[in-house]
């Protein structure tokens, strides 16, 4: 009985926009605030996990983010999208909970490996695919913080460039630039892995030309 009643209510909240839910939550409608929570908790958890590498920290970040949202619900502008605001709070909280130097948590690929959904394919193919994923995520981990958060927000959380600009607090052009340099660094790192079909970066401008000439024996 309870499920039959709760399901239409949940569907009703699913159809409502962020703005409507924020306005309803301001009037004390807690189910509306809960609907916002269930709408964004997974994305914030993934973002926190990718930065802190610790699932328990990521859960705390989710709870802290929405606790702050609840306290600031009266100051939120309904016209603006709630998602960049939530992700911005989550990014700041995640940086505060970053693992200290000398403390090694499980890597991002390790954290994700335990929840990998079963896939179809022969075991060798699955193993090769898992190895490729591990290599890519390892290269993402080696990026700097500014580049890494842009990559994570874009490829993991699916935010567009304008939303990422709101999250990180910089112009869209800066986000484009960071994403470009992040991909270039990834290309450099991934070219060391032969199975990823990323061509080596021997021709990188001045330095790359020098390496190319050196490889051809002209220097």
């Amino acid at each position, binding site marked *: 009985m309870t499920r039959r009643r709760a399901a239409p209510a949940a569907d009703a909240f699913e159809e409502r926009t962020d703005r409507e839910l924020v306005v309803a939550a301001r009037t004390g409608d807690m189910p509306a605030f809960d609907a916002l929570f269930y709408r964004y908790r997974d994305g914030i958890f993934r973002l926190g996990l990718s930065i802190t590498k610790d699932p328990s920290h990521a859960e705390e970040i989710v709870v802290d983010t929405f606790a702050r949202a609840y*306290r600031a619900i009266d100051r939120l502008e309904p016209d603006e999208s709630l998602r960049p605001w939530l992700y911005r709070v989550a990014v700041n909280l995640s940086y505060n909970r970053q693992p200290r130097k000398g403390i090694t948590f499980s890597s991002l690929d390790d954290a994700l490996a335990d929840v990998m959904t079963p896939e179809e394919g022969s075991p060798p193919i699955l193993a090769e695919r898992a190895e490729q994923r591990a290599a890519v995520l390892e290269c993402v981990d080696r990026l700097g913080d500014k580049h890494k958060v842009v990559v994570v927000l874009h490829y993991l959380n699916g935010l567009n460039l304008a939303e990422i600009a709101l999250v990180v607090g910089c112009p869209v052009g800066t986000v484009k630039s960071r994403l470009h340099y992040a991909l270039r660094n990834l290309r450099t790192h991934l070219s060391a892995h032969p199975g990823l079909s990323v061509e080596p970066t021997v021709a990188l401008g001045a330095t790359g030309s020098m390496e190319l000439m050196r490889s051809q024996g002209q220097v």
Partner: protein
Amino acid sequence: MNLFGRGVGLEEQVVLDRLLDDAFAPGRSRRVPISAVRVRARVAWQREAPESRGWRAVAWLGRLGETSLTVGMTALLFAGSLGGVGGQTEFLQPERGSEYVVRVAVPLDDSRIVRLLRLGLAAPGTDDVDAATVPTREANDGEPVISVGERGGPLRRTTVPLRDDDEPVNTVRERGGLLR
């Protein structure tokens, strides 16, 4: 020549996009079993206390009481530490060439006053002198003096009878020994 390196071409971008999408696919499908009740509990836990005037006054009085108690205890401890230094036994160095004397203020007694008068000495106004008291004229400063006559030896306390309303005043002068 590009000083900032070769850019990411379209084909490379496609390959990198595919690799990143594939790498983050398990993470995108991840769900976290956190209930909204946890957020409500966090909000309720961090909610500020009600601030009415009555509560503010009570809180202010409480803080005032704590502060005054702390100051009082500190002053008491400080005064106690100073009093410990002053409470040591006071030793009086005897004058050079004089006897050890014990000055005792004892209660008055009529028979003793008569005895002092027979000896030709003026009895003190309020002090009484013990039977063993022989005041010396030279060093008499108006107080009854008991000559002990022990030089260098241990000094013994003289038992002095007390009256109910008077307190003995013992002033001890000794050389090299402690009062027992």
